[in-house]
């Protein structure tokens, strides 16, 4: 009896060894594992999709490392400090967006980058985090569900950066920023009637807008707002992407054997359309593995955020989880032809940009909110 107990406790102690390290780091083990597996999967795919481009792989590794460091750092920060810093962060983001509009670096007809000497920085990426944080901060002290006056303030918080980013122009990111803010308001208990009304308004607005545009104008508008995404016309992208995925079948053509990817028929195959490379080379099974990893990450994130001790934690955590889902869904949807082509990367897998750092920072905050829950409450 005693023996058994001691064995059990020793086991618990040894098991707890790793857990204690994670605890000390304020990191959630399962979530970290999930994120690591997704990133590893992404590296394997990128090696093939980039046609064995090692420098590209190295840059991705460096970004992942940077993102991981920031994530671990953020996980150790007390959520109260995060919460108090939120308005300042948001204000800084708005100022940076204004700076981009004034002195931003023009690339491919769009002003998105701030040239900070050695590094270039996209303030809109910062806003992907700052807007939901700001919304959560605003709702934190107020009783839920939000009142009309709260909604008015929240609308201003969300729409100001959305408008600035949309004007860059970067419609995709603007939409994602807006979605991040909206998710916080939704989780805060925005009334269903208001949601329904907003949805109706959005649909009506879209139909109304389309009604008065000719086909070429619509196309021109889309390519004007997002010139990078359609160098050969959106149709070509989506057709080649579906050919790639469809020809992969159940088991795929094999790693480094996707003809659509290797022969350049698949556009943007290391960035926005890397999902198609997975579909082509690893087939339905490979895609299922990736989607299960994503589902685990999202599910775990949602679970963690439900454990949040206060409104700020829960809303922000939930927003991180749901925004991550939206990334995955839109990317998978657009490569399979389910939703229109908008330049949304597949999180942690697509090559490039500050999005890796942003995503991992979000999860760092989520971990911080969860691991510090006992300090608050």
């Amino acid at each position, binding site marked *: 009896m005693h023996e058994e107990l001691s064995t059990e406790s020793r086991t618990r102690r040894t098991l707890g060894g790793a857990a204690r390290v994670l605890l000390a780091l304020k990191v959630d083990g399962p979530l970290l594992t999930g994120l690591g597996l997704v990133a590893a999967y992404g590296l394997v795919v990128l090696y093939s999709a980039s046609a064995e481009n090692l420098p590209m792989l190295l840059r991705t590794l460096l970004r992942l490392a940077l993102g991981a460091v920031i994530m671990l750092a953020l996980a150790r920060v007390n959520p109260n400090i995060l919460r108090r810093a939120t308005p300042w962060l948001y204000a800084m983001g708005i100022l940076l967006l204004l700076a981009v509009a004034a002195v931003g670096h023009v690339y491919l007809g769009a002003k998105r980058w701030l040239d900070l000497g050695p590094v270039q920085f996209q303030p809109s990426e910062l806003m992907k985090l700052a807007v939901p944080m700001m919304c959560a901060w605003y709702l934190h002290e107020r009783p839920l569900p939000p009142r009309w006056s709260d909604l008015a303030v929240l609308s201003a918080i969300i729409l100001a950066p959305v408008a600035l980013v949309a004007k860059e122009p970067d419609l995709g990111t603007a939409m994602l920023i807006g979605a991040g803010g909206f998710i916080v308001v939704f989780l805060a208990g925005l009334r269903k009637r208001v949601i329904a009304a907003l949805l109706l308004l959005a649909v009506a607005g879209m139909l109304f807008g389309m009604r008065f545009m000719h086909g070429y104008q619509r196309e021109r508008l889309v390519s004007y707002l997002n010139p990078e995404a359609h160098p050969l016309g959106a149709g070509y992208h989506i057709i080649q992407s*579906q050919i790639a995925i469809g020809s992969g079948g159940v088991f795929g053509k094999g790693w480094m054997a996707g003809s659509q990817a290797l*022969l350049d028929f698949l556009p943007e195959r290391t960035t926005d359309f890397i999902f198609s490379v997975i579909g082509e080379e690893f087939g339905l099974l490979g895609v299922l593995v990736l*989607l299960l990893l994503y589902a685990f990450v999202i599910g775990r994130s949602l679970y963690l955020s439900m454990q949040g001790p*206060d409104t700020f934690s829960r809303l922000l955590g939930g927003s991180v989880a749901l925004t991550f889902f939206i990334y995955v869904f839109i990317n998978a949807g657009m490569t*399979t032809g*389910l939703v229109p082509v908008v330049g949304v990367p597949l999180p942690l897998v697509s090559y490039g940009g500050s999005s890796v750092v942003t995503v991992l920072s979000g999860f760092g905050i989520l971990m911080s909110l969860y691991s510090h829950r006992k300090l608050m409450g």
Partner: protein
Amino acid sequence: MSPVRIKDHWREQRIFDRRAWFAGTVMVLSALAVLGRLYYLQVERHAYYSVLAQANGVRTEPIPAARGLIIARDGEVIASNRPTFDLMLTPDEVPHLRAALEHLVKLKLLQADALPDLIRTIKSRESFDSVPIRLDLSEREVARFAVRRYEFPGINLSPQQARWYPFGSLAVDAVGYVGTISAGDLKHINQAAYAGTAVIGKTGVEAEYEKQLHGTNGYRQILVNALGRPVSRPGVLARDLHVEPPVPGQDVILSLDLKLQRLAEKLLKGRDGAVVALNPWNGDILALASSPAFDPNLFARGISEKQYRALVNNPDLPLFDRALRAQLPTGSTIKPAIALGALTDGMVNPTKRIYASSDWHLPGSDHLFHNAAHEVCGWVGLRMAIIMSCDVYFYRLAYKMGVDRIGAWLPDFGFGHPTGIDIPGEQPGLAPTPAWMAKHYPHDYGWYPGDTVILGIGQGSFLATPLQMAHYTGILATRGLSFEPRLVTGLRNPRTHKIHWKRPILDGNLTMISPASWKVVIDAMHGVTTNPRGTAYWTMINSPYPIAGKTGTAQLTREQANGDYNRKATPEKLRDDSWFIAFAPVKAPRIAVAVLVEHAGWGATAAAPIARKIMNAYLLGPNGKLLPATPAEPFSEPATLTPRVLAGVPATLTALERASRPESPPIGSRVLASEAP
């Protein structure tokens, strides 16, 4: 206004949880939608997208088949393929285009003044397509480039196959030539089968046997990327690529005897004329020459505008194949046919002599028909009339027979319709057959007795080609057998070298003509060369073998027709055409020859010596003696038809389909009628 609300943590937690669950449900449903879409793409429509992906990256490149050779009966190759080297440039791989081209100019591989055009051409192509910048380099040029190849990245020698006629113009009218495929050619070929083929047979055997010579092109699948650029290392994707090797074209074996062909062309040199020699027992053409000729190699690699204009504007018409296409009056060479017709129809008693002066009155008219040069024949029978070519005798005979009778006989001797030679372009000539008469002179309206009279000496409404004359001579030589003249005796498989021999086509047998009639006329033709009064006596004197021949002097102007003809005073283009037909040896003929020399005057003086030299070359050995009957030839058929073989064979007419040709009555219909019990 509104009541002060206090934060209710439990309630807020509940709101959040409910919302989170709701969001979770939406996420699961969305995920199901994505999975459904993936199932549709990757399972339901997998086959469809697989085909699309395969078609995306695979380009099919043709591999042209090697064109079949054309080989003469003695084994000499008369049309072959020659490896050539073209200089190809791939713009993508050339660092400094202009500098590279100027360097090539320095090496004398390019013309300096061609550079601007060349650069424009190169710029107009895809940057990864290789562009030919110089065709057909000489051996020295190839060597000059090869040693400096390292200085020219992106420029390569590309081996090609080009048609090559090693003997130039030799037998060009029989062999024909190939040229670049024209818009007109595209209409009647399967364009898919010609992908990768640069040239197509335009005339002669090259055109008629295009299908057999061309072979079947193969193809090679290559991997291309989205820009159409071939992928140099297809790696793992190469496993699905297919290669179909080409099937080379068949070799065509000709009946031509190149020794004879060379001689015929040599003898015609500097003159306008034609020679056709054939084996009368199977229709094999031994020589087919038309002068002047031209070099088919000009066409094989693309003739220049200037060269083509020079050929077309030449007044001697080198592109005009006189042997098959020149339709001319044949003069007295027609007389043996008229005589055989008259004998068979009982219109003439061969032993009866009549007095023939230098001219003849058409009964009931004061129109005079003269003998050539106003010669007086004296008392002549049919035999002597042929020997000395007495026009007056044949005026009277033709008048007696009438146009209907003559017109009915001429097709039996191969006139008025194509002979059926196995190359395209043959002209039918003209004969006043009953059908032709009914069409052009209904109820004989407009046809005068004089028109009939001059038919008797091969003038007026009678035109024939040199080929028809040789074919006719062959019918005389075999005493009535008509074989379709042919150039191609067999097809050889280029791999196994197995030869498929073609059977000679017998398309007529004039069995209604009695052996006695044949004897009279052929004795007379023998007399033409042996009787001191014979028109070809002096040119054929002392022949080591007996020759049957007939001269012809075809008149081209009214003065000539009236006999008031002074050769020297007449412009050359209006002077008489000189004809000679002959076969030898008389009893067992091995060769039949027809010779035309345009505007050369008497048949005996210009054409007959040529015929004699050709027969000598064919029949005589180096010792000047007659060769044995079957000369050893690498490509001689195992069972050549000989007079002896044929004697036992009834008229097995393999080509009575002749009847299907319009305007020509079925040859041998009379044969069949006469054979019916």
